[in-house]
């Protein structure tokens, strides 16, 4: 074992120095040495529990997506049948059990209806598989049920759209470097480092911001409306808590309204005459024309401004609104007007999102954690080093060298692999420091034993490494299994703990076995001692 070939020495030192060197940018960064923003410099990410910031897990309800898909198909079908020449008469529509069904007035229309609806059944995006199945039951009732591919296409596009909207809203809040990732089918992870006010973010993301303008049903009887009974072709909406008529209801016409998804701009403002907070909106060209038509045809009529299913106000069209811009009033505060403007500008969420997990840590607490964690780690390491040198002398010094390089290589690998260091990860470091010396303890105790049995120095050292490595491998492989499971199961901070443990196992075996062996054999070859103090 004494004659390590030169190429092997160079190779081992090369790997060691390269990996340990990768840790330098991360170590020097706090001391003010800046390597620039260049992405070629590996640096360890700090987890949100150390850097401060917010982690939000948002979930969409697939039922909401399915429901919306049904509403859309209902509109398309109704428009298509009404627009047919001659018009196809139908009634008794229903959206129960995730199906849309309607009754044709005449069974003779079945084939014509099929032909007209076929393009809608195929879906819009030129998808290869149909999005809807169309069946006829009870002679003339047509039933549309979503195919499984149709449902998943709808969910996917809703989630992708939602991620876009979330990103826009976070950008508009002025925070930097958010991480927004889809997780599984229905979830979105949002991580915003250094966020001061998670409350505003949560309110932003919790608002769907689906804006609608609908004409008020003037024929509806007040007592019917408040009792929840609508005329045919009308539906009833509640006023929002923040409006000037909270707790009351209003009846509006189902068709002929305008949706707010054709907005190109929205900003908060103040009405010059009334001094009220308002949100000014600007439609795109198409939306502007439709809004102009609607307002021209209904001058003097009431219309309802509906946000996420709640009426925020019901003003009158005083005059035709032709420029494509309008203003929304609704008892706003400056803050709520601003918030609504942001939501409207970033567009409506294609599906409502719910915050199902939040973890926020202030930057102060994060800093405090890093400081106390580092101090504890430093004291612990010094104590371990003192104990090792006092117990094993020269061999303890080798073990210490291996330990220090172990920490550096571990940091270097984390930087190269772009892993995240979390608070439990610091505990993982301490545990690794403690456990890494175990390999050296095993080897050194074995050498002691072999010497005690009267073996020569060379043989004792050689046997020490050979016999101890069996237990070292078995122990580290089983530890690796436990660590890998932790990584697989864990989320966020726990995963940070597992990363340190698992990488630490590999680096500690490398440094404790390979590197110390190199140094010990170098010493033995140079000095050829008759006795060693161990």
């Amino acid at each position, binding site marked *: 074992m004494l004659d390590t070939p030169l190429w092997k020495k160079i190779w081992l030192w090369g790997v060691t120095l390269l990996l340990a060197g990768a840790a330098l940018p991360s170590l020097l960064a706090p001391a003010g040495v800046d390597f620039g923003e260049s992405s070629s410099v590996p640096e360890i990410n700090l987890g949100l529990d150390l850097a401060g910031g917010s982690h939000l897990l948002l979930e969409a309800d697939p039922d909401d997506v399915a429901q919306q898909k049904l509403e859309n198909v209902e509109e398309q079908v109704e428009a298509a049948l009404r627009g047919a020449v001659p018009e196809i008469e139908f009634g008794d529509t229903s959206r129960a059990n995730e199906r849309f069904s309607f009754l044709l007035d005449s069974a003779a229309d079945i084939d014509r209806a099929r032909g007209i609806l076929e393009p809608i059944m195929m879906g819009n995006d030129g998808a290869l598989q149909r999005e809807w199945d169309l069946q006829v039951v009870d002679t003339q009732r047509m039933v549309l049920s979503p195919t499984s591919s149709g449902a998943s296409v709808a969910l996917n596009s809703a989630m992708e759209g939602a991620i876009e909207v979330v990103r826009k809203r976070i950008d508009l809040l002025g925070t930097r470097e958010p991480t927004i990732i889809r997780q599984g089918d229905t979830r979105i992870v949002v991580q915003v480092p250094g966020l001061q006010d998670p409350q505003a973010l949560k309110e932003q993301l919790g608002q769907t911001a689906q804006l609608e303008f609908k004409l008020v049903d003037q024929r509806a009887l007040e007592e019917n409306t408040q009792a929840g009974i609508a005329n045919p072709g009308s539906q009833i909406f509640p006023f929002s808590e923040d409006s000037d008529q909270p707790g009351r209801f209003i009846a509006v016409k189902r068709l002929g309204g305008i949706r707010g998804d054709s907005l190109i701009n929205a900003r908060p403002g103040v009405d010059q005459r009334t001094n009220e907070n308002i949100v000014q909106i600007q439609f795109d060209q198409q939306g502007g024309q439709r809004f102009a038509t609607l307002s021209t045809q209904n001058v003097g009529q009431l219309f309802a401004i509906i946000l996420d299913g709640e009426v925020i106000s019901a003003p009158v069209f005083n005059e035709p609104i032709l420029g494509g811009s309008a203003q929304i009033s609704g008892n706003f505060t400056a803050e709520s007007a601003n918030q609504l403007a942001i939501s409207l500008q970033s567009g409506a969420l294609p599906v409502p999102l719910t915050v199902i997990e939040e973890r926020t840590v202030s930057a102060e*607490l994060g800093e405090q954690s890093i400081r106390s964690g580092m101090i504890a780690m430093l*004291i*612990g390491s010094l104590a*371990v080093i003192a104990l090792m040198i006092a*117990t094993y002398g020269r061999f303890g010094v080798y073990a210490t060298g291996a330990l220090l390089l172990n920490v550096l290589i571990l940091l270097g690998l984390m930087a190269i692999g772009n892993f995240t260091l979390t608070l439990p990860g610091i505990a993982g470091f301490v545990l690794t420091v*403690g456990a890494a010396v175990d390999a050296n303890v095993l080897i050194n105790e074995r050498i002691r034993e072999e010497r*005690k049995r009267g073996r020569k120095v060379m043989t004792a050292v050689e046997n020490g490494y050979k016999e101890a490595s069996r237990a070292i491998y078995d122990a580290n492989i089983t530890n690796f299994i436990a660590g890998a499971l932790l990584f697989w199961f*864990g989320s966020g901070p726990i995963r940070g703990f597992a990363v340190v443990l698992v990488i630490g196992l590999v680096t500690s075996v490398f440094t404790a076995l390979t590197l110390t062996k190199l140094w010990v054999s170098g010493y033995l070859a140079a000095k050829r001692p008759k006795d060693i103090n161990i």
Partner: protein
Amino acid sequence: MKLLKLVPQDTNIKFLKVRLPFFIFSLLLMAASWGLVAVNGLNLGIDFVGGQEVQLTFEEREVAPVDELRQRVEALGYGTPVVQAFGSPNEVSIRVPLPEDVEETPGAANEIGNQVIAEIQANYPDARPDGNQTVSGKVAEEFSRDAGFALLAAMLMVALYIWVRFEWQFGVGALFALFHDVTLTLGMFSLFQLEFSLQIIAAILAIIGYSLNDTIVVYDRIRENLKKYRKMPLPELLDLSINETLARTVMTSLTLLVALLPLLLFGPASLFGLVAAITMGLFVGTYSSVYLASPLLIWMGVTSNSFVPTETEADKQEKKVLGGL
């Protein structure tokens, strides 16, 4: 230089002479732990029951108004909150578990959290929120399921590995020792009603790793001695193996302890539970390797013949592993 020898050379402690009393003692401890968990329950954190946890620092006070906080938050009507000092006396952690009837409502935890924070900010202008965690019932359920699965899978897989590398008796012995360690850790958390969070699952998996480490070192020596001393009675051989590895056991436990203690004493308050669990696991794990994992081999009838058929094969494998270095 005179080197430190923590354990005198050539110890010959008859560890296994008292194996039966210790084994019964261990069984009693395990039964007591399960009893505690059944009666006292675990102080499950919001990771597992859902709800809201907020950490506050009162910047203009020496001591946080713990009782007043408890009353105010309880007045919101979501049950009794857990209000605990957290780190220094002017820091506090408030935990409001999710009421059972709203567990299924998405966003309920978040709503409760908003109200708790609004209530505190209205009444205590000097309270600085340091951290805020909200976990919904659904996510908490997933965490519980995954945690249980990860623990079971970890124990079974490592037992399987040991069975392959050693003999089935060793696998069973190691598994039992792990079960013992996990049980006692749960017992301690139930006894002291420390918050049982996701971090503690991480700690238990670390304990499993450490305890195994210890068991494997002893088992490895037993395997070696079984091949070497074919005629030695098993109890004597186990005692020999434990004594031979005693210096290493003490040294490693001690280095781990000196590394962990500063973290326990000066480390971040949010790591206390994790570090406390691992520190306890250190002692329990060492004990179980000596007094559970080893005597079980006697009762399961390991003999020196256990390794004769596999000896050559095992040796070959080892040579391969070592040769690859």
